[in-house]
């Protein structure tokens, strides 16, 4: 058995005053560990435009390795620019997943465009950094992984991993847009693709995680961590309707696998839930698990899917 001891929120985006593109949200944390500090990538937004529409950027914050609640610095600029006219990432680059590979830092990210009948569509792009993850260059103007017959839209939430000499990309794919009170709401499930070179991907074309709370449950942030001979996945899930509040909003789920393909879901073992009060009392989402100096941590989002920032929790017990 294991559980997560909450340590608190790392920073509040509303209190960061010097960056015009960082006004609200610090979403989808992803770590890159350095000798003296831990770089946490996250996605954020400037103020909404006159129509109330947001764009989203990704950036990073460096935290003191020996005190993860001490902010050392923020990125000067977003790590990726928005795409040009008609490109898949014209209105957002969120979220991002980061990995080191032979001296290069590689990023897979979701790019957002706006549609007419539904609010948006998303596809997965790729970028590389040659300066230890400070800045990134897109590998091309189009997506690295796009839509296919069984993954027709909303390809998002990439999480890149490299296990046993093979690349795994966990992500979500939309299965339907559901009309709820006249509004189109996306239903998405957790999927995976594999690659030997990180460029050409083979989709597994299978929902990895069975739905539990309802058939149209939406699942996101498939974060896979290897420990004690097993793959542990922490993810988040929500109801398809009225999910912007506490009752139907995001919670963190858990599944395990020995082969990365067949997953056994058991949310009762997730070991973390909403708090009685405070910044994460309504919902918790977008988990990211990482190991640092002999401890295992989870970064996760609180209320309103990270509008007020992300926090950390520490593993108690063993991931078995």
């Amino acid at each position: 058995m294991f559980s997560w001891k909450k340590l608190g929120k790392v920073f509040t985006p509303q209190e960061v005053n010097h960056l015009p593109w960082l006004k609200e949200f610090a979403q989808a944390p992803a770590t890159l560990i350095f000798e003296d500090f831990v770089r946490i990538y996250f996605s954020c937004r400037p103020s909404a435009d006159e129509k109330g529409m947001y764009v989203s950027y990704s950036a990073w914050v460096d935290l003191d390795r020996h005190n993860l609640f001490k902010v050392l610095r923020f990125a000067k600029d977003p790590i990726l620019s928005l795409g040009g006219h008609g490109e898949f990432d014209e209105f957002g680059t969120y979220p991002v997943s980061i990995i080191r590979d032979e001296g290069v830092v590689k990023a897979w990210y979701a790019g957002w465009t706006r549609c007419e009948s539904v609010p948006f569509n998303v596809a997965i792009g790729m970028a590389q950094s040659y300066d230890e993850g400070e800045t990134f260059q897109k590998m091309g103007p189009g997506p690295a992984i796009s839509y296919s017959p069984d993954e027709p839209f909303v390809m998002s939430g990439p999480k890149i991993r490299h296990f046993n000499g093979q690349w795994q990309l966990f992500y979500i794919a939309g299965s339907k847009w559901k009309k709820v009170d006249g509004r189109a709401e996306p239903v998405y499930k957790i999927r995976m693709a594999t690659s030997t070179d990180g460029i050409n991907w083979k989709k597994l074309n299978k929902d990895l995680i069975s739905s539990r709370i309802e058939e149209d449950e939406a699942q996101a942030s498939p974060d896979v961590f290897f420990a004690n001979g097993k793959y542990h996945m922490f993810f988040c899930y929500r109801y398809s309707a009225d999910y912007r509040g506490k009752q139907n909003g995001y919670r963190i789920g858990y599944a395990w696998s020995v082969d990365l393909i067949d997953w056994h879901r058991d949310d009762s073992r997730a070991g973390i839930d909403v708090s009685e009060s405070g910044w994460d009392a309504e919902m918790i989402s977008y988990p990211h698990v990482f190991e640092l100096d002999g401890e295992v941590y989870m970064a996760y989002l609180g209320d309103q899917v990270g509008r007020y920032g992300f926090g950390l929790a520490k593993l108690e017990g063993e991931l078995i």
Partner: protein
Amino acid sequence: MLNWKKHGLIFSPTLNPPLVNGVGFAQSPQALVFDDYVRIYFSTREQEASTGKFISRVCYVDMDKSLQEIIRISPAPVIGPGALGAFDEHGIFPFNVLRHKGKIMAWTTGWNRRVSVSVDTAIGLAISEDEGETFSRHGNGPVMAASMNEPYLVGDAFVAHINGCFHMWYIFGTGWKKKSPEAEPDRVYKIAHAKSDNGINWERDSKTIIDSVLDDDECQALPTVIEAGGRYHMIFCYRECFDFRLQQGRGYRLGYAWSGDLSTWHRDDSQVSQLMSQGEWDSNMQCYPHLFRCDDKVYLLYNGNSFGKEGFGLAEMML
């Protein structure tokens, strides 16, 4: 030099409306040859109630083998509407059919509207097991969509099965351009080629294969390929990037290229210059060509003025 015989307009959607609540057009005619007749698929339009915008639906007309007499028109569109948020939600145009192992495969170009640009497109696959009467989708998503080096519109598939391999000629967008800062963006697209073993998974090399004759912004569309006389002939249409809807001489006309090896193409528009006309249904514009063989003859279907509003016509390549 290729020699052509024109047979004029053969189908008018005004005289033979394919949809009860349709608003005209019979675009991108594409043929499926049967023993006693030729079925010609085309995209026609209906108007979306909520927005007043057009949606393209695929219908067919069966014609006798002289290609002059209409036998019947499809009772309803051959494929249902696309799903909410899917790549083909706002219509299918064009619709390219191929008979293969007892089924009819159709590569669709699906349209979905965007906010910052007017539209995005991708290529889907649909299958008919009733001789092309009705089609069902191979999934709600596309078989070929935007990719790393083809970031915009992907569409206008034409597929042939040659020596055990599916070959697709298609177009991909190379950018959205504005004539002036205030103007709505216009798209630029070029012809490319992909290969597949099964018609579903495609390998593409993301490079243009047909030289431009206008300038770099020449828009090339709807390639169609046929083998005749020991070489491959490709006909397509091309136009200027800006003001192509209104200004005379800037709209679509037919282009031509040939190849001996399906790899290198030699452009030579003079091979189709004989098709030009004056004061006719196709004198201002010629577009959306489709080559097919029927009883040892090679035919060209194509649209004329106003992108096929008045219907489609026929020409014959004299062998």
